[in-house]
């Protein structure tokens, strides 16, 4: 949380330096109108290091011994990590009722019982754990090999995700039934995710801008990237979304947040209309040739 006015003003020069640096590092985009946000949120870092100007801080990010660690702090203070279980339930309904059956049918034809799902920008883990619970409730997948991979750029939220202990605000749209079946009570009114849910999920640290490391993830059937790229500008969105395209199997799905779209970003994907939601899909190889021509 941020408290009150920055004591240290950020000059326009410093703003340009820092905003470019942040943009290049993680795609977050600040304009002169949102300069105050950058100023406010980084002030604490300056105070922490007892620095007197944003320029000093900039050079610290460039030349400091612990610059990687410091970047993580920057990202932590700049990103909004809000998330909760079963967020955007209509989309999850599409996922369980329409998308998963379609994938399973396709896979069974080739005899593979393997499902790989990536929750990109998973924050404190509510999203990948929700996906895991949904899958546990679908008996047809009980003998499948399932990987759910949650990644985020912020070390702080990944720590929370691994811990798996949540307070009331994470449960604002969780039915009591789920809470009973998949959580254990913890002191202080909190709840801990059950082991059989945790077993399905792996967490990793990943900057969505780091194309080289993204390639290490392997191919996916579904990618969830909800409420992450809203803070990016078009060029940054393009970069990230094209990486998703690479990671998806043909006919794999990309699920964005409800207010997000790929209009003006890319036409690599097809928009599929399901009963509950519209979802992007990587086309079949043949269609791909037509679309990219």
């Amino acid at each position: 949380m941020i408290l009150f006015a920055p004591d240290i003003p950020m000059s326009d020069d410093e703003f340009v330096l820092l905003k470019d640096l942040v943009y290049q590092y993680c795609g977050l985009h600040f304009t002169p109108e949102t300069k105050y946000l950058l100023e406010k949120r980084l002030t604490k870092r300056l105070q922490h290091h007892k620095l007197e100007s944003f320029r000093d801080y900039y050079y610290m990010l460039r030349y400091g011994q612990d610059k990687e660690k410091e970047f993580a702090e920057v990202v932590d203070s700049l990103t909004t990590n809000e998330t909760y279980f079963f967020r955007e339930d209509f989309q999850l309904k599409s996922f369980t009722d329409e998308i998963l059956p379609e994938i399973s049918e396709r896979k069974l034809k080739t005899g593979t019982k393997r499902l790989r799902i990536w929750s990109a920008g998973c924050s404190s883990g509510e999203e990948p754990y929700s996906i895991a619970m949904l899958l546990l409730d679908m008996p047809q997948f009980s003998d499948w090999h399932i990987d759910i991979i949650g990644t985020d750029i912020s070390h702080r939220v990944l720590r929370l995700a691994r811990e798996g202990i949540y307070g009331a605000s994470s449960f604002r749209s969780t039915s009591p039934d789920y809470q009973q079946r998949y959580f254990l009570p913890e002191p202080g009114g909190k709840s801990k995710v059950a082991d059989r849910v945790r077993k399905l999920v792996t967490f990793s640290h990943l900057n969505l801008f780091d194309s080289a490391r993204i390639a290490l993830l392997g191919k996916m059937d579904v990618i969830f990237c909800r409420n992450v790229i809203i803070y990016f500008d078009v060029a940054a969105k393009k970069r990230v979304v094209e990486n998703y395209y690479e990671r998806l199997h043909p006919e794999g799905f990309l699920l964005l947040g409800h207010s997000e779209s790929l209009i003006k970003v890319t036409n690599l994907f097809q928009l599929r209309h399901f009963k509950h939601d519209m979802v992007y899909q990587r086309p079949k190889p043949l269609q791909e040739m037509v679309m990219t021509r």
Partner: protein
Amino acid sequence: MTEWTELQTMLASADEETRLDALRRLPAGDTDAALQLILQALGDSSWRVRKQAVELYLQRTDVDQSAGKVVEQLYSSDNAGLRNAAVEILIRLGSVVTRRMIAETHSADHDVRKFAIDILGGISDSDCTSALIDALRDPDENVRAAAAENLGNIGSDAAVPALLNAMESADLLSRFTILEAIGRIGRPVAIAELLPYKDDQLLRKPLFECLGRVGDAEAFPVLMEGIISGPANASEAAIVALQQLVERCGADFDSNLSVNNSRLLAQTLGNFFSHNKREIRRSAVNLLGLLRDCDNAEKLLDLLSDEEVQDNAFKALVALGSDGAERLAEIWLQVDVTKQSYIAYLFGQTAYRKGVPLLLEAISSSDPQLREIAAGALGKVGDADALKSLINLFSDEVDRVRDAATEAVIRLGGAYTQLALEEIRTCLDHADAATRMAAVAALGRLGGVDATEVLLESLKDVSPQVRQAAVRAFTPSRDETTIEAIALALMDEDAGVRRLAVEKLGMCADLVTLSPLKLALADDDVWVRSAAVRAIGLIGGAAQLPVIERLLFDPVGLVSIAVLDTVEKIVPEQVNDLFTQALEHPDHEVVIAAIHGLVRNAQKDVLSAKSTLLSAHRSVEVRTALYRALAELAGNEALSILTIYLEREQDALAREQLLSLIDNLKAAHGL
């Protein structure tokens, strides 16, 4: 083919480059044939060609005689590009054409009259004003509006009476424009003349905006009424306007408030707290602060989570003083820790003594933020009793809490020095380094005879953090023992200690520190080396230039940047040479710093000379810095070169940057 017909053919080509080439090959000299071709090119379909033609025309020496031909182009009603190019030329010719343009304000063609008005507005010398004032009576509505708009742009005080005068007989569009123009000119007016329009629904918004800029305290009631009675867009304008007025002549604000309208106003303002425009939310919150309506205290507390207006909401809360704090103290137990933190902060800012018991409890909360803020607040309102509890926080696990407690102890220590010193001393032997660190920092700041002694002792502490705190705590002085002790710290095994020692020696501003500092220039740690560069510059000034300059090509850019900064500070007249050299530094960060330095010192020619080299730099950041620098220094002239760079640039971010620079430049120059 003669040369001229060939050029003419080229100019008729479908290929833009060929047409541009034709212009490039145009022989110099003020011939009529050349004029003809230029005029033709002014009407070209491509803006690059038109622009080139404009520049060519402006290079002629016979513009006095040939301007008439350009004026004629204003009559080509079928070619907007041509007309705009002519307008640009005429504006740039300035006073030379004022008389001609004044004559054109009487043209039979109303479009031309409007262009003439715009051109006069662009030229804006003193002769133009009266022609524009006359045009306020033009038979054509658009011309009248243009006249009002340009008077606003010129910003001439003399036009205000005429504008007010014209208001009476004007049609709606012109009234609208006149109000905007008066607002833009910004000269105070007797608002009685404007008030009659307040009941015209369509004019309320521009009227309120105008009042915000030029009104006086007399406008308070009108704007207050405007906020309450709408329509929505007028209320918004009134809110912003009232806030502007208050800033200018706030003293009278209160006298216009009765209990009744104050309530109503406060309520209405509350409705704008969730408006999507930040400016309106802010103004509403600021005004609410002035109303000092404690009923809104909780609402303001809620607003503190809205980052965009949180500062304003906080000021409004502080303005409520202890009455507001009292209200919030009542709900302390019902709110979450975040809000408790806000309230705690407010206790501090409003010096709310009765809040001390809550604060004392809050410093043992499990939430570090609340502990931090409560400690800070206790520093402001606490008394001797709070000292002990605060000192206990010296061993808090969170460094921000320790820092806040240290600050608070220093604050309270001002009033209860003896007691504070005694309590702090007990911490100096504490097993926990963090506690010793806080104690050292507090001692240093409290000062006193024996503080220096304790600090000297702490320079030998086993913990590098404590040693750092000790160096930091010294007040820079020329006292020999102090300088000696700090110079000794230059040999500390911890780079942080060495760096702080270097900085401190710089602040001591004593020449005896020069030789140890010069040794620090060879330190293994880059931060120590850069600090040494800056410190030497601070003490030795220009005389040390040769020593400092030698580090320009230090393998680590940070040091080179320190060199650049320092030289700019101590011998600004030498930056040119050094910054130019730095453009060749292998570390791109240095190159960027050099580019910024050249911009600061308006070294347009140096940058232009190096721009070809830099535009091929492997670092995108360097290239973007170059683009921005060119746009800033060369303005309009940079357009064509930036357009060329755009064709070459591969990186998406840099391209976006270029596109927006080009757009901005074009917009700024009406292209």
